[in-house]
């Protein structure tokens, strides 16, 4: 047990399937077990979650893996030394095309079916056709400094499609499906459960997941302010311990359905279990009324008995910084000045797990 300096903690999260660790630690009493009383506060935008962490309105937050790096570089407003002592999840994103676009692609290729996961090659004819008419396909991601953004760009680049060949918007996760339904979006890259929602509603088809693109790369991390951690070292240890236990609990497949039930509650995702459960069970809904595709590790929270899974190793941070550089978010000088091991803090993680 730790001698916690601060028992009452405000922890911010975004309503997504991979907020499971922070929610399960609460529902299963792991925070309490480690001497903490955690108040989970649901946030509606990443920007607000970030500002609240920077200013101490919340003590800790579930963050997109690139966010601590973006904060340290001051890519949005003031430079802030955010650290991450732990990886909370890997994978969980998917790329969904609108049903309308998919039907058109099928017709263009004179086929009834395209095998999945598919490459962005299937889009080329439509992109060319639109180019002739001076138009582009419209894609959306949830935040600029996000794995979603980098995954989408990579998927396109793998097929020699330049990001300038498409329109790219930032759209909040909860608005993705309605925006696609109204014809404003041709495709999006978003985290669970929103891909599954698009499929269930017949609005879109999910043809590729982040697991198909990247090999188990970190998706969400625990974010703290560096000063806060220095003032509360034991509390940080307790928090990491409780979350580690939640991640381990989530690795048990029978527990996953129980997790889906918790997540569907109004105070968390406020979404039907039909939409939340599949990805947690390794099932990727593809087309409405079709058999789902099995995707190993669609949502990954730990590897049973292997603490390395949640360790925020500096090379993950370096990889993310490279992706940020490749997509023009940061320049070579910023990369050179980055001290990743002071952001991705494996030392804290290893001191406790």
């Amino acid at each position: 047990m730790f001698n916690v300096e601060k028992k009452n903690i405000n922890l911010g999260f975004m309503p997504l399937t991979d907020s499971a660790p922070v929610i399960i630690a609460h529902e299963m009493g792991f925070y309490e077990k480690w001497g903490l009383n955690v108040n989970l506060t649901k946030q509606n935008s990443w920007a607000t979650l970030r500002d609240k962490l920077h200013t101490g309105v919340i003590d800790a937050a579930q963050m997109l893996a690139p966010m601590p790096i973006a904060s340290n570089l001051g890519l949005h407003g003031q430079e802030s030394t955010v650290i991450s002592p732990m990886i909370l999840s890997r994978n969980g994103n998917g790329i969904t095309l609108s049903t309308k676009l998919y039907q058109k692609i099928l017709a263009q290729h004179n086929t009834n079916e395209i095998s999945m996961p598919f490459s962005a090659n299937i889009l080329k004819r439509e992109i060319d056709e639109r180019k002739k008419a001076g138009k582009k396909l419209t894609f959306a991601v949830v935040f600029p400094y996000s794995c979603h953004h980098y995954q989408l760009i990579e998927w396109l680049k793998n097929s020699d499609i330049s990001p300038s060949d498409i329109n790219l918007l930032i759209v909040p996760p909860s608005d993705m499906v309605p925006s696609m339904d109204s014809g404003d979006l041709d495709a999006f890259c978003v985290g669970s459960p929103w891909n599954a929602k698009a499929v269930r509603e017949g609005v879109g088809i999910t043809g590729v997941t982040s697991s198909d693109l990247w090999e188990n790369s970190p998706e969400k991390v625990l974010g703290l302010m560096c000063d806060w951690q220095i003032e509360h070292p034991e509390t940080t240890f307790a928090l990491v311990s409780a979350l580690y236990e939640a991640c381990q609990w989530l690795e048990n497949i029978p527990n996953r359905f129980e997790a889906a039930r918790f997540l569907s509650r109004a105070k968390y995702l406020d979404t039907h279990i039909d939409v939340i459960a599949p990805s947690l069970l390794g099932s990727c809904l593809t087309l409405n009324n079709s058999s789902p595709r099995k995707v190993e590790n669609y949502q990954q929270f730990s590897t049973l008995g292997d603490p390395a899974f949640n360790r925020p190793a500096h090379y993950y941070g370096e990889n993310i910084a490279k992706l940020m550089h490749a997509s023009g978010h940061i320049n070579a000088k910023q990369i050179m000045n980055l001290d990743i091991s002071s952001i991705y803090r494996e030392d804290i993680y290893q001191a406790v797990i």
Partner: protein
Amino acid sequence: MKKNTLSLSKKNTLHQDVTSKLKVLLAEINHVKAKALMGVLTNGQYDIYHIAHSGVPLLRDVEQLNPDVIIIDIESPNRDMLENLNKISQFAPKPIVVFSEQQCANATINQMVKSGVSAYVVGEVNQTRVKSIIDIAIARFDLFQGLKQELADTKQKLSSQKNIDKAKRWLMETKQLSEIDAYHLIRKMAMDNSQKMDDVAKNILSVASIF
């Protein structure tokens, strides 16, 4: 001819800046809240537009309207979308003034404002308070834009100074002029052709590159 058009259009922009009202977009789904704020802000200084939808339709309206200021609630999911407009398009950055009914300590508000949130109005929508906070937010934004412009101007000045120096050196070497004479020659050419010294220097350098 080309030069004249340029300077004229610059004058026009300046003129416009002084006289036109600020376009304020209020992105608020809750009509009651929106109405209260509209009431506070309606005066001679601002043109207020209220948009109640979210997602892509909101984005489209923002692009069409091209507002100077966007006011959005801190708890709105649309915040990410509007705040990152400039990262995905050529959109100029705009201050986003956020407000919330949540009770929040003054120190926190100050922190938030420092960390990039333009302003943060808390509690009841109080007439004088909201107006003054938004005025301050806009002033801060103008100051920031001013500093950015100043930096760009300084960079421009430095680079023209470099061009003039280079042209001067070339004249000194090829025409055997003293430094003062070379400088006077560039200045005279600029005056005769009513061009900037930087432009004359660039012309000289492009001629120099041929030899």
